[in-house]
């Protein structure tokens, strides 16, 4: 299934915030989580994650820290801030409203269709 580019872009922020709400993480791990969550359906251009993360940092939604894990390379970790949590809650309300509205109308239309086919 192809998901529209605008929809992917719009869902990127809440998705990343929600992933970070589970705990701090770094770029590659965030991207892997996105792939796993969407079953590979959400096609992200990997690089684009980083400008997004940096925007969240500028807005104060996340803080960052460079760390070197025991085995491996220095990498930047991202942590959700209280502002980020608030933004996530806000985003969540918005998405739930949209998704409820769509669900409602599709459920009604589904009922009509069944009624029509039974008649």
């Amino acid at each position, binding site marked *: 299934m192809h998901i529209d580019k605008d929809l992917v872009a719009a869902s990127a922020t809440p998705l990343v915030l929600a992933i970070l709400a589970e705990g701090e993480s770094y770029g590659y791990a965030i991207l892997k989580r996105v792939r796993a969550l969407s079953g590979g359906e959400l096609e992200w251009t990997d690089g*684009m994650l980083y400008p997004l993360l*940096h925007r969240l940092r500028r807005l104060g939604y996340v803080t960052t820290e460079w760390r070197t894990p025991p085995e491996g390379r220095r990498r930047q970790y991202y942590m959700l801030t209280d502002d980020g949590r608030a933004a996530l809650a806000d985003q969540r309300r918005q998405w739930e409203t949209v998704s409820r509205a769509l669900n409602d109308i599709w459920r009604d239309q589904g009922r009509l269709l069944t009624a029509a086919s039974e008649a």
Partner: protein
Amino acid sequence: MESVEPQIAEWRAYVASAAGVNGHDVDELEDHLRNQIAELNAVGLAPDEAFLVAVKRMGDVDALSREFAREHSGRLWKQLVLSGDDEPARASGGWLTPLAFAAGAAVAVQVARLAASFPDEEPTWLARNATLFVLPFLAAYFARQRQLDTRQWVLTGTPFVLAALVVNLYPWGGGSSTEAFGTDSDTEALVILGLPVALWFVVAFPYMDGTVRSHERRMDFVRFTGEWFIYYVLIALGGGVLMGLTAAILEPAGIDVDRVAEWVLPSGAAGAVVVAAWLVESKQRVVENMAPVLTMLFTPLFAVMLACAAVVYAVTGLGGAFDRELVGVLDALLVVVLGLVLYGMSARDPSTSEPGWMDGIQLVAVVSALVLDLMVLGAMVARIGDLGFTPNRTAALGLNLVLLVNLAGAAWLAARFLRRRGTFHQLERWQTSYLPVFALWAAAVVVVLPPLFGFD
């Protein structure tokens, strides 16, 4: 993974050379690339295959660089210099359009000068209206460049018409005060000072594509103002050298150089306003390299100077005895410092969200300015208590109050930012939200003060 190391290094160099991507970004991207390659290796891909797939997934470097540039600057002008294909680059429109508007301003000023037979006579209407012969051309230039619609053109033009009505219909009487700008009416002198400031904010409207709410665009305008100023000074210096040499050449030929200067100077100064704006727009990269260096140079110097002044005045107790001249000088100084801090803010490298030493120095400058401002205010309140309100004192008091609130807010947010309790974004927001206050005060000085004080 040994075999792909050279390719990774090559890729890294290529990404690093892209505009808008800095060293940390490249580190982060490289780490990502290596993780991806390792994972693909683990599922059985050959190293070079894994490299190709990983690079492909990373995405088009041009698009990536554009995205980074947009985030790092968050500002439109960056896109001008990037080869964007999905985003139509804003054409700077060649040099003919700006030249036409510059010529318009030059001619308007010249006509006004001849009508006033300046400098043989110095009618005050000329000084009052001077801005109105120049800035409408700048505003029109931007309105044209940004392709504003009719409504926005009207909105751009209205303030200029109102300003023209105000400065020309108010019954300016000869005041009793000391003469300044060829007038002895204090309120008239204030209008001559205040109108350029107020109308400069009007130019912001077409500059910002006929919008006023976007904080990013407001910051762009701050940056534009700073860069415009730099270009204008450069043009003025070059023009000065040119005039000097011309004079040296023409003098022996028996030509009256003063007469030539009368013609060239006003028109040149007016035309340069538009030309400087055009240069800022089209030669962004030149200033972009120069401006952060200039702020980095002057912010510490001003910070030291302000801190010394604040300490000296506080210790020696001179603070209580500010006289009128000193208050004027200090006000000018505070405005310059605020301009410098604002401009430094707009030119700050947005990719560093961590506070750096420059942010500390800015805080020193802001706090020192705050202390000075408080002392000026104290002196001024005492003066007003003794001698009552005059137009000058009211204008200065208002300016100092406006500055006080701004500086206090800026100091508070900057301190929070330095202690990592807040973000730079909040500081930026404070300043961009505050810009209309300056505009309103300048407008109030022009429109409200004169009738309030009977045009004295």
